[in-house]
């Protein structure tokens, strides 16, 4: 099909600067660049006009914590299905974690993932590389090769680098490449054998607990080492109020630390694990309602830099095992935006500015990528969201290869109607009426 100009009429445009979206028209030209964003752009016959009244336009989200499982566990997810799930959920760029099988711990592996993504994905798929060879925590992986091939972060995600000496050296060495080191914080000796947060609920269910201090001690250690090494560090999936307080202290001391929170650590607590629902089992585990509150406050205050899903697909068979034996992790790409909309934005607990900043702008800034702002002159990279729509989270909606989400079988508010990237429409649920608002002759309403 011949490229054409597209005019998004009467859209409510969400940005990182205003809690409430502002109405404007957006014109995307035939090369996929946003030509104009202004209150009333007159349509012409060579434009495809989309009525976006009552819809929200927001920058495509960027998820900097995704497990794509390829190579190694293609039965759970592939780069292709994972990116389809991302598009389905309004996420237009992702950063893959390196704990595949084999792990992404060399230039060759980074190259493989990048090449697969170019062939199979409609959105940018970036990848991280391991801090240590084989994620074994014994020796440093070849960083220069991985960096040259395009790795934008190093992490042993899934486990911490247990040896503080090695982690210190990794932080120092990373500075030469100005690559960010991301840390999964956990003291394995304290968390070993645990299945959920240690507390009243783990006692009630008779499940082995993971104490909050396991994560907090590790955050403290890693930030102190980053301070000592003067390196950039990103703390992954924080889950506790005390962990956040530690981050606050080091930020105040000037350490270059950023951190992320997952939607599930904002929206669920261990009290929700009522009947051994393995779709609420992840690492770090769901903590207390007080922790939910502290994380939400931290998000609004700006202490938490990023929302990321920690999308972790697992097979149905594995998630049907008993709670203690089933693997950690839930999927998030398909449902992150609609769940945050349903439970936070719709209830006035966060504004659209917070969502855009934490889930679109900041991850790109931290990874030194081009922004995806809806402004004149930038390449189109946005989604059309229907706040009045409903999404039924079932087999036909879910595009991930796995269905391990706590929202399975539930209906959520809002619907991602469309994803626009450059000249391409990657998703179109037909929510926007294609016929012009006005008569075909171009007369006004």
């Amino acid at each position, binding site marked *: 099909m011949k490229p054409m100009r597209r005019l998004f009429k009467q859209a409510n445009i969400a940005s990182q600067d205003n809690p409430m979206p502002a109405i404007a028209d957006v014109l995307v030209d035939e090369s996929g660049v946003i030509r104009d964003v202004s209150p009333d752009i007159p349509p012409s016959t060579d434009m495809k006009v989309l009525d976006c009244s009552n819809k929200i336009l927001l920058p495509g989200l960027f998820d900097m914590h995704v497990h794509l499982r390829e190579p190694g566990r293609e039965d759970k997810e592939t780069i292709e299905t994972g990116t389809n799930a991302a598009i389905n959920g309004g996420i237009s760029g992702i950063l893959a974690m390196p704990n595949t099988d084999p792990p992404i711990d060399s230039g060759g592996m980074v190259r493989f993932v990048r090449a697969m993504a170019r062939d199979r994905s409609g959105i940018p798929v970036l990848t991280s590389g391991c801090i240590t060879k084989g994620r074994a925590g014994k020796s440093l992986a070849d960083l220069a090769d991985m960096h040259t091939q395009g790795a934008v972060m190093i992490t042993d995600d899934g486990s911490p680098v247990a040896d503080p000496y090695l982690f210190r050296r990794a932080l120092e060495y990373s500075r030469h490449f100005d690559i960010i080191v991301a840390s999964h914080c956990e003291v394995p000796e304290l968390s070993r054998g645990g299945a959920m947060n240690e507390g009243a609920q783990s*006692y009630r269910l*008779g*499940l082995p607990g993971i104490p909050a201090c396991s994560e907090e001690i590790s955050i403290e250690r890693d930030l102190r080492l980053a301070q000592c090494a003067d390196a950039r560090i990103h703390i992954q999936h924080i889950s506790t109020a005390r962990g956040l307080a530690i981050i606050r202290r080091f930020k105040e001391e000037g350490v270059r630390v950023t951190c992320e929170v997952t939607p599930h650590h904002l929206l669920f607590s261990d009290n929700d694990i009522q009947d051994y629902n393995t779709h609420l089992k992840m690492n770090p585990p769901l903590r207390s309602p007080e922790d939910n509150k502290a994380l939400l406050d931290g998000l609004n205050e700006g202490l938490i830099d990023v929302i990321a899903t920690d999308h972790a697909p697992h097979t*149905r068979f594995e998630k*049907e*095992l*008993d709670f203690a034996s089933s693997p950690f992790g839930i999927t998030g790409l398909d449902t992150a935006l609609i769940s945050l909309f349903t439970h936070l934005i719709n209830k006035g607990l966060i504004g659209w500015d917070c969502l855009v900043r934490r889930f679109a702008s900041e991850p790109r800034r931290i990874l030194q990528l081009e922004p995806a702002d809806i402004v004149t002159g930038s390449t189109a990279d946005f989604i059309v969201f229907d706040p009045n729509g409903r999404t039924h989270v079932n087999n036909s909606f879910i595009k991930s290869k796995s269905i391990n989400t706590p929202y*399975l079988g539930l209906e959520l508010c809002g619907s991602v109607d469309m994803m626009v990237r450059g000249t391409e429409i990657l998703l179109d649920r037909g929510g926007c009426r294609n016929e012009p608002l006005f008569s075909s002759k171009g007369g006004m309403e």
Partner: protein
Amino acid sequence: MITEPNPSPVHSRKDLLDIESLSAEEINHLLETAKPFKELFTRSVKKVPALRGKTVLNLFFEPSTRTRASFEIAAKRLSADVTNLAVSQSSVVKGESVLDTVDTMQSMKVDYLVVRHGAAGIPNQIAKHSPASVINAGDGNHAHPTQALLDAFTIKEAMGDFSGRKILIAGDILHSRVARSVSICANKLGMEVGIFGPPTLIPHGHPDYFHTFNSFEHALEWEPEVIYLLRLQLERQSAHFFPSLREYHQVFGMTRERFELVSRKGIYIMHPGPVNRGVELTDEVLTYDRSLINRQVENGIAARMAVLYWLQPGIPSPTIEEKAET
């Protein structure tokens, strides 16, 4: 003549998974139901036809002789047909899940599944999946509801009532499904519950109604009327919960010295069995006239008969697969 107990206004349930989901009224109803069943044991024909034509499957993923035998006798005294199946938990390693095993069992159209498993929550999972009535015969550290019912029956038999009476549960509270179920049951029945053990084996986040003590002597000053000693899993030592069995016995066990005081006061002693002599208790406890340990075993059959008699097989709730389709 005694026949079957009268139908009661307390509605039956499909499953018995834990004590927590039972009301005090339901617990009392089960204790009342167990009474005539126990009277039956003194007769020459110890059998009623209540479950004639029904099939009970004892599905034990964890080895057990006592509990399995108790359920088997209970079911047979209700005239049910009983099959015992010991399944290795390691079948999961071969790619077969517990639900696969249950599916196989389901093809045999059993009415009651008595399940024991080393992992918490397995009976809940099976109950959602199967139309058979599921009875939890012990799952990991979670629950052992029929143990709590037989214990409550035994306490009532010995003391007549529950209200305001004090029970001290001593030992490894953290890893004990018995402690969980017994404490919840005692609390629902109006008893006061004290717990005592090494701080390493006292759970974080235990219920507020637990009285806690910093020594056995201190616990005895609280004047408990029943001391419930838990079986210590000997492998806890290697996980550093305490330094040695010798020290455990001296500081946290029912030593001969403590037992002398206990017997002078006439405090009842209970234990879910089998006992570790010289660890949680001294030998003398076993011949003590106020030891209820053998009564617990006998009452186990009556309590389990009451449970089997009360439950009604029914319809399972939707599975993951069905949820995904909707």
